[in-house]
């Protein structure tokens, strides 16, 4: 079976990992960096991803997308409150958020697909083989739409997503593999944009999730925002400038807030410096860890309620937890560690790198699926109750939250009116009583034979697969005939739309390759210009004026071509310059050789 990689598609950073000799390992880039910033920027040369895109956050904020994970599987109304924090343009079409980049709009799965593609390329370059299959992690508390959107992102990136697994459970696999623990563990996963808590029982290689809870809109981003608001207020008071009117400066403020927060995990106080718009100079202030903790205490407090719910659902008290494992960059904050320790009454375990542990776990799960690891098995749960709308706008649960998956449930439907030819079935996910307070997953119309009211018997089966994704089938019990139901997701991309996006991505793949070639050609041209210039200075006296002029002409032609957009033209001019400067280069080589030999005896060089 072809190799399956494990991918942590994070709010802030993403990673790809694979299994090597029974141990999971993360794939680094050429510079040894394991994390790819989850940032996509539209530049004059096309779309770029990762570290290079991150540089555009301040230079080009309106065309640089970050934290796209917060928009996965969501409608515009879901995120209305936080739009002000994002400098890029967000709209909605067909119930799905779209992000405007230049002339085109992209859905969150398309943007995520660009990040996935970058990871795919990285893995292919490192492993020297084509990668087409992956396990991708999602926050445990992701609902059906968000999982579906993640799967779509994989498809668009040209990856067959063999399994969607939950981040905290993935972390537990990596943890369990390395620590060989038995017992009950709590995984506290506080990342860039989401918070999850999962309680698991580890026994004889079985990882049984007892309960999971969380908040898909609670993470490091929210901590940064508190500081952003503080700095904006300060700047307004001191300089009378509304920084939030300047997108690029807002990004500077946000990045400085994030960096200050990170510094304060190690230091007790730090200095903030922010360049002000319109040459108003720079804003500086001091921030202490105490001040930060005072400001974010309320947000960190919000992680504790899901912890208590998960404990209750698992039927446990904090005493019943043998070990607490920390995952996600936000758990580096001392206050977070203190709060976790206070709640569970034990010091949390943080020997594993909280940035990498999820990707490592995904690689372990990938190995299980490919048949490599056979002694470990993950039994996960569905985080949210699944039900249908019943009379009076009330949700009736069919599958309760924290039910082990795969899970199935059946409900019998019949007609209410004589001769009725169909019933509307509205599928919901959530814990609230009323339909309007829960997530609408899908609505479909079920055909029934026109019979007296109450006579038709249609059995609708809900099946949650091992990815936590819902499938629906209906059977007419009179004829025992199964009807497949087209479930149109209320907040997702349709199949045709996903297909079109896959096609687009191949089309853009060609464009992307051109963009890459252009960047490379420009870099190479610059290097050649620089060395030729140097040769002219060092050895120009050795050639005729005529030759030197020829070289200068070629040089200026290449300089012009370099600013064009066709990599082939650049390469052609480079070849020409190499040709005209050939003689110079030979002389240059001799010259430097002679220089280095100068003053040495023959015996020393032969």
């Amino acid at each position, binding site marked *: *079976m072809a190799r399956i990689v494990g991918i942590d598609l994070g709010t802030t950073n993403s990673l790809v990992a694979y299994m090597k000799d029974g141990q999971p390992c993360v794939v680094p880039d050429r510079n040894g960096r394991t994390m790819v910033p989850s940032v996509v920027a539209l530049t004059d040369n096309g779309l770029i991803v990762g570290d290079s895109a991150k540089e555009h956050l301040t230079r080009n904020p309106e065309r640089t997308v970050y934290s796209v994970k917060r928009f996965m599987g969501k409608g515009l109304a879901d995120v209305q409150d936080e739009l002000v924090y994002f400098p890029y343009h967000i709209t909605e079409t067909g119930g799905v958020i779209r992000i405007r980049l230049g002339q085109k709009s992209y859905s969150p799965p398309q943007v995520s697909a660009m990040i996935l593609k970058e990871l795919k390329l990285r893995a292919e370059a490192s492993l020297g083989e084509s990668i087409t299959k992956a396990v991708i992690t999602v926050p445990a508390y992701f609902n059906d739409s968000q999982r579906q959107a993640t799967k779509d992102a994989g498809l668009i990136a040209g990856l067959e997503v063999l399994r969607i697994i939950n981040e905290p459970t993935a972390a537990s696999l990596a943890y369990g593999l390395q620590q060989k623990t038995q017992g009950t563990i709590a995984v506290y996963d506080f990342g860039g944009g989401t918070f999850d808590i999962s309680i698991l029982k580890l026994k004889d290689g079985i990882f049984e999730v007892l309960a999971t809870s969380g908040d898909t809109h609670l993470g490091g981003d929210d901590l940064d925002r508190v500081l952003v608001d503080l700095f904006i207020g300060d700047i307004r008071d001191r300089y009378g400038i509304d920084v939030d009117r300047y997108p690029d400066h807002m990004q500077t403020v946000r990045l400085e807030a994030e960096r200050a927060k990170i510094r304060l995990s190690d230091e007790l106080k730090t200095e903030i410096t922010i360049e002000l718009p319109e040459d108003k100079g720079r804003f500086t202030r001091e921030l202490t860890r105490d001040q930060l903790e005072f400001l974010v205490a309320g947000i960190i407090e919000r992680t504790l309620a899901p912890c208590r719910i998960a404990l209750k659902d698992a039927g446990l008290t904090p005493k019943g937890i043998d070990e607490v494992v920390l995952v996600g960059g936000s758990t580096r904050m001392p206050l977070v560690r203190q709060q976790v320790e206070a709640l569970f009454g034990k010091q949390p375990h943080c020997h594993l790198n909280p940035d990498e542990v999820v990707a490592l776990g995904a690689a372990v799960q990938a190995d299980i699926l490919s048949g490599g690891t*056979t002694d470990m098995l993950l039994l996960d749960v569905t985080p949210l109750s699944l039900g249908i709308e019943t009379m009076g706008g009330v949700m009736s649960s069919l599958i309760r939250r924290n039910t082990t998956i795969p899970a199935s449930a059946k409900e019998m439907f*019949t007609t209410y*009116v004589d001769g009725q030819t169909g019933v509307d079935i509205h599928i919901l996910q959530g814990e609230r009583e009323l339909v309007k307070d829960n997530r609408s997953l899908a609505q479909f119309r079920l055909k029934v034979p026109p019979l007296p009211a*109450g006579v038709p018997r249609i059995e609708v089966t809900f*099946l949650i697969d*091992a990815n936590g994704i819902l499938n629906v089938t209906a059977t007419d019990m009179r004829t025992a005939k199964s009807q497949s139901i087209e479930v149109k997701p209320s907040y997702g991309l349709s199949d045709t739309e996903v297909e079109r996006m896959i096609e687009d991505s191949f089309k853009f793949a060609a464009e992307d390759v051109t963009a890459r070639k252009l960047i490379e050609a420009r870099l190479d041209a610059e290097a050649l210009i620089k060395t030729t210039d140097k040769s002219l200075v060092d050895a120009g006296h050795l050639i005729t004026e005529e030759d030197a002029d020829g070289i200068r002409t070629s040089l200026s032609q290449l300089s012009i071509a370099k600013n064009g957009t066709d990599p082939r033209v650049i390469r052609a001019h480079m070849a020409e310059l190499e040709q005209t400067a050939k003689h110079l280069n030979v002389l240059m080589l001799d010259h430097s050789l002679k220089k280095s030999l100068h003053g040495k005896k023959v015996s020393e060089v032969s």
Partner: protein
Amino acid sequence: MGYTPCPLLLMDNQQSPPHPDTRRQLQMARSMCWHCQSEVTGEYFCDRCVKVQPVSKETDYFTCLGFPRRLMLDPQKLEAKFYELSRTFHPDFYQTKSADEQTISLSNAAVLNTAYRTLRDSIQRAEYLLALETGSVKDIRTSPPADLFEEILDLQDTLEEYRASERDSEQGHRLRATLQTEQEALERRKEGMEAQLRQLFADWDKLQDAGEATSLARVERDRILKQMRDLLSNRTYVNNIVNDLAATIA
């Protein structure tokens, strides 16, 4: 007047008898391997072609987990069996197999999970057994214990009063104290019923172990089932009130 959302009927469909035609079909499917058509003698796999076999929809949860119809099950043994069967059926181990086998593994794992969830909890286990033995579980639901009826009506009034009152007022404190006392009393009551249930569970297991087919045994069987049904129904009712109380006072 075309479509009406009306999920009606069959509160508890797991126990509903399937359509006669479906039943015959499923039983046939069980005795014959879906893949090589030879007779299946192994428990979960075909002996000849080693393909996983679908767990029949007729299989009750006790049979599915390999336990007799008893009410005092050892949770450790139940868990061990559940883990063992999870290793047998979980879709993770069928990723490299055919699409048919993947479908079977998925539905078997779903049945196994439901079976374990039902049998793991002693109350759900008893309700399930009652449904198996008496054919219907619809009227188990909930009903107040006869002798508690008056008391519960009073309690509902107090609850209403408390909800309407100022939490920090003297009246609020007084009502809260009353409700707390009530909650404790009802919790003790619930524990009492659970103790009675455990006795009935033991009686049931003893009767089954004896395996006598006398008319006396039949009378005893009916008594246990009848008492169990009433107790389960009352316990659920009281349990709901206790939860309601706890949520209101908290």
